[in-house]
């Protein structure tokens, strides 16, 4: 199984990652599910309605990679995946920029979809990142939501 994890400040090309995955695994792949998270211009912090001007992601170098590695290991143990690729940006981003990519290849669509969704759910609740929103009304750390925790819980056996 191919695993790739990138944590970086710069933007990424979904197309380059998709093309490389197809090239490497060719006709074993029957399904590729992808998810991209993007910066919205609505404020999540306290729902104060301020327009988001920038979003800053902080991480814990080393531990963050390890936390994502664990998530991918769990996903592979659970579904027959051919390749997984996660890119998560850190630093400061503007609305409509890409934040995160999860791409999962499998022989069949169920595993690809479930794997991608599982990895995203766990990125929200287990991967070591913190989000800070800067709006015209100030700045604030995004709180983890109960909805995210409940979503991640559905994968518990």
């Amino acid at each position, binding site marked *: 199984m191919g695993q790739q994890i990138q944590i970086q400040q710069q933007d990424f090309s979904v197309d380059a990652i998709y093309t490389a995955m197809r090239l490497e695994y060719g006709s074993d792949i029957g399904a590729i599910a992808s998810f991209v998270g993007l910066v919205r211009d609505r404020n999540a912090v306290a729902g104060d309605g301020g327009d988001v001007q920038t979003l800053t992601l902080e991480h814990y170098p080393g531990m963050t990679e390890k936390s994502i590695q664990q998530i991918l290991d769990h996903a592979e143990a659970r579904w027959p995946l051919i390749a997984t690729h996660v890119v998560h940006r850190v630093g400061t981003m503007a609305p409509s920029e890409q934040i*995160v990519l999860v791409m999962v290849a499998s022989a069949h669509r169920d595993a690809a979809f479930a794997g991608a969704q599982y990895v995203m759910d766990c990125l929200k609740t287990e991967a070591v990142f913190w989000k800070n929103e800067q709006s015209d009304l100030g700045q604030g750390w995004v709180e983890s939501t109960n909805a995210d925790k409940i979503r991640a819980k559905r994968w518990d056996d």
Partner: protein
Amino acid sequence: MSQHSAAESGVNIDVKFFASLREQVGVAELQINATNLAALLKELKTHLSDVGFDHLLSPNIRLAVNQNLVEGDWREAALVFAAGDEVAFLPPVTGG
């Protein structure tokens, strides 16, 4: 005949604070001399403001030692440190 005191014979560990917690304690990183969790907390209490220190103990703060999360309630864990250990206080994560 003079011996190092217990505190002096402790080991130096790196203590890190992230995100909201870093802002609350007012520092990103401290070098602390402590061989176990109780000694670490005692030292941190002297280095941080009362308000900042209280934030460390709030229920949703997790602890990582050498980038491994301490399972269960770290406040109850029998943690012993070696020289160069990296101890991190982590507020709830919000990635993705």
